[in-house]
């Protein structure tokens, strides 16, 4: 059977186009974003060793917090913050949402990847400190106009405490380095 070189070329072009879309689409997507990818390393935590169930709960609580943070700052809604943030972290994020509402701005935290180290777990298990190397695409919108769009790495020092049914973020402070 004679090979059809024109058809093969078309298939190859299609494959390249699809691969390019798959590769670059996440960088420019503004619609539904995937859940944050969070990796938690507890190998260096002290003075108390972290129990497996607690580790899972901290990981789930932190991932949920970032989902809620992104949702609140994209939709300029305070409601998503209530379940995951308390204390200073909650008040600071609420101030940000209210300020965004006032100035007609919104923020998108897209394609989040968090590499998190647990660095301190209190002797009585009532406080954990995390160091998060967060990588995400930050978009700032003024109405419908994008005024900033950048893939960035931000380092956060995070304090979490156990809440009624999950671990919640009490302090979240970005720092130049750990």
């Amino acid at each position, binding site marked *: 059977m004679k090979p059809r070189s024109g058809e093969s070329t078309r298939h190859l072009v299609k494959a390249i186009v699809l691969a390019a879309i798959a590769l670059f689409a996440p960088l420019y997507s503004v619609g539904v974003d995937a859940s944050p990818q969070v990796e938690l390393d507890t190998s260096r935590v002290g003075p108390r060793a972290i129990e497996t169930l607690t580790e899972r709960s901290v990981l789930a609580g932190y991932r949920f917090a970032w989902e809620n943070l992104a949702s609140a700052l994209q939709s300029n809604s305070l409601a998503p913050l209530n379940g995951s943030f308390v204390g200073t972290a909650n008040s600071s994020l609420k*101030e940000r949402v209210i300020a965004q509402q006032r*100035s007609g701005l919104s923020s998108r935290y897209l394609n989040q990847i968090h590499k998190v180290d647990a660095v301190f777990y209190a002797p009585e298990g009532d406080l954990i400190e995390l160091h998060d190397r967060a990588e995400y695409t930050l978009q*700032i919108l003024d109405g419908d106009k994008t*005024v900033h769009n950048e893939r960035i790495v931000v380092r956060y020092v995070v304090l979490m405490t156990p809440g009624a049914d999950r671990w919640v973020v009490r302090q979240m*402070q*970005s720092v130049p380095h750990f």
Partner: protein
Amino acid sequence: MWSKVAGTLAVFCLAGASFAQGGELRGPASAIAGHPASISTTGSGAATFYLIGPGIALKREVKMGKDIALASQELQNAGEYLRIVCADTCQSAEFFVSPEKPASLAFLVHPSRAPVGENDVISAVALPFDRFENMVLAPTEVDFQLTAKSVAPVSHRVTTQDGIAWFRTNSGRSAGALQVEASVDDVSARRIVQQVASNPCNLHIKGQRTAKGISVETDPVHDCAGNPVPDGTIVTFTAKDGQETSTVDSPIKRGVARAELTASGPVVISAASGVVMGNEIRMGAQ
């Protein structure tokens, strides 16, 4: 046609006059929480300035070539801030705001009640915060002091690591209030740990026949350091009468636990409190 092109160019030129001409943002590279700062700009014309940071999202019309003042209340939260200026194009840069000096301490001390004479039973964790509730992450010396009645105060100095100072210590030998204090410069926080008697030591019982059965009671119950075991602590009396065993749980009242047991035949009575066993007494038949 040429008139249309010329008209369009004129519109662009007029519009351009109201936008910034080139220009860039300079400073601050860093700032301190609650302190004003300014951003200098070059170029000319109108532009829109944005400041995005922890607790803030600000939009302001500015003139390029003039300084942009950031008020102290706009920089109260420590962390990374993004400044953006948009004219014909948008430019951005980041800067960090550092916490101020410590103004308060979050102080966690456990447990609220601790038995005396236990190793590493008391833990204290201190986190310094500035007046805007930013976590102070620079290494800071925290002085911990433990004070109990009729005992010389004990001090520990610990430098914070990643914003946290902590220590663990033994409980003292005497029951009573233990004050645990953490201080950084003129900022301090205090907590009280109630040191209570440990498990009973040398639990000793005595008994006698009565008309109704056997009356048993302990000697005054103390721990091994001589502290009276608190009232309400349960002492369990057990009576073995041949094949039958009966138990009575009795709380200590005024230092002594008492029970009335019903047994007519020969009986062996023992007592226990927590993990501590007392002596046995044997009573003959009635």
